[in-house]
């Protein structure tokens, strides 16, 4: 419970600083997910990047993602997101440059390597594994802090 409060506070404080606020209800749902859903992860990343409003729904986030032309295949049915695909979303949404291999072959594999190198993810950086809602929020928190540090 303390970790949940910490994450919420960290996100709200950081969110206020950069001009966005996540819906608490949605964050609660994400925190409760052992394997975070693709649409929820998309909502988190796109709203944090200011591409969609924080009042949008996960379904609207998916529609917005389809319009981005990032080359990310969007699943037709509700499904979990892998760490690699989540990393790839972050790379695209926050314009993270990536390594040489990412520049040559952009995709989830080298996106996961990049976020591990930047320290956003500290546990197993396998691009094929799933991640919990709590971990997804923690990674997003680290990505936002990194983006702030680039200014």
């Amino acid at each position: 419970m303390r970790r949940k409060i910490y994450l919420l506070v960290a996100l709200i404080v950081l969110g206020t600083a950069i001009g966005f606020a996540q819906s608490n209800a949605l964050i609660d749902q994400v925190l409760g997910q052992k394997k975070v859903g693709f649409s929820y992860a998309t909502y988190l990343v796109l709203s944090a990047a200011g591409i969609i409003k924080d009042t949008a729904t996960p379904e609207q986030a998916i529609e917005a993602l389809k319009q981005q032309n990032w080359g990310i295949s969007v699943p037709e049915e509700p499904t979990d997101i892998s760490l690699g695909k989540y990393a790839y979303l972050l790379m695209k949404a926050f314009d993270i440059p990536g390594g040489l291999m990412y520049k040559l072959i952009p995709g989830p594999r080298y996106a996961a390597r990049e976020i591990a190198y930047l320290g956003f993810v500290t546990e197993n950086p396998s691009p094929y594994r799933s991640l919990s809602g709590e971990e997804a929020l923690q990674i997003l928190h680290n990505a936002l802090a990194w983006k702030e540090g680039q200014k």
Partner: protein
Amino acid sequence: MKTKKTLLSIILIVVGATFLYSFDFGVVIDNSSSYSSKEGEGFIQENNAHLWLNLPLGKSWVFNASVMGTFSTDEDKPVLFADIETLSLKGTFPHLENGANLFVLELGRFFHKEFSGFVFAHRMDGVRMEFGYPSSTLQIALGYTGLLNKYYTSLVMSKLDALDDLDKDILLAPRRLIGTISLSIPEIFARQNLNFSILVNEDLRHLFEDVIKEGKETFDPSSGGLVDTQYFGVGLDGPISKGLFYSAFFYLGTGRMLTFVPDSQSNTGEAYLYKQILSGLGGLSVRYYLEEFFQSVASVQILYATGDSDSISYIEGNRSGNANMFLPISGNALGTAFQPKVSNLFATELAYSLKPFSGVKGFILESLQAGAKLTPFFKPSKGAMSEGEVDPAAGAGYLGTDLAVFANLRPFSDLGLGASLGFFLPNKSAFLPGKDDPIVYGQFVFSFSF
């Protein structure tokens, strides 16, 4: 037919497990091109490839494997050689109810080091257990080094180890059993961390081949005995003030070494006897981080390792009485052009580095780190040290100074570059005649992972 079916089943299980769980794999290639003006060295290029696999098995276990291969121009090594770098199964079990709140078990081939890194830092085959308590961590490890490819090791401690190292027909490293017990107490007071470590190094060579037995009355230059050592260490590290950190440690070295000494009970008046090793190694380093000024780091590191005034060589060189030269198993060294082991040595390293483009975000040279190191070396007592060019008959005193500049750059997360240039100016009176030339050393390294 049955063997083929079994093999196929194993392959299917491994492949199935690989895809069932969240595995990851990759390749790292690195190159080192170096030049040393030291006699017998010259230009050496080594190209390495490492293929690694990381396979989580369920919630608690991870299987790690890595193989490495090398293409080398070093005349002391084969052109091509390879080894299993790591091969281990690691289980992590948090929240146990037996007092420890974390238990980690690792079986197989892994890299292991004691807290200072100056006595033992090497791969070995064995088992490692870690018990995490609320206020401390206890680690116990036991490993064997005799299955490692010798061209990737630095474990020479005895005369027979040294002879095997020169023999191109011998592929494996010295057969040693290494045991360590370490206790780490973080933030015991004022954010200071306390470490204790006991290491035991048991030479197992006598189980596989003949060695000189104690009591032999004639000198045999073509063979040698066993070198068994133990180390008892304590270390303290932590912050002193904002940006200022230190670490200090001391190891007491004990053990036994075969020595050919005068013996009144011998028919020849001399005999091989095992003599006690009693030695010490101490270190102190202070580092100051100045983030605001181009991420600068200034540091001073002092090392003192005891010597033995009657020792005539680094390997089994004791001539009488106890062997007082500190003998590490395998560990770090100071210097760039001149890199003696921590035996009969007093060294002070002054270093400074900065990242001149750290403030230019997104610039390709943002990660560039450049620095310089100045390391005066001294011999604290008469006798031998690891570098054969040093005159064992020369008394305690100044050996020379190693001056080095270096630069490291990681323009992309998967590409690393490094260069270093070192120059050693010897004190000629401490070196053997004809072996007292200055040493120039240069190295360029790059690594790429995918």
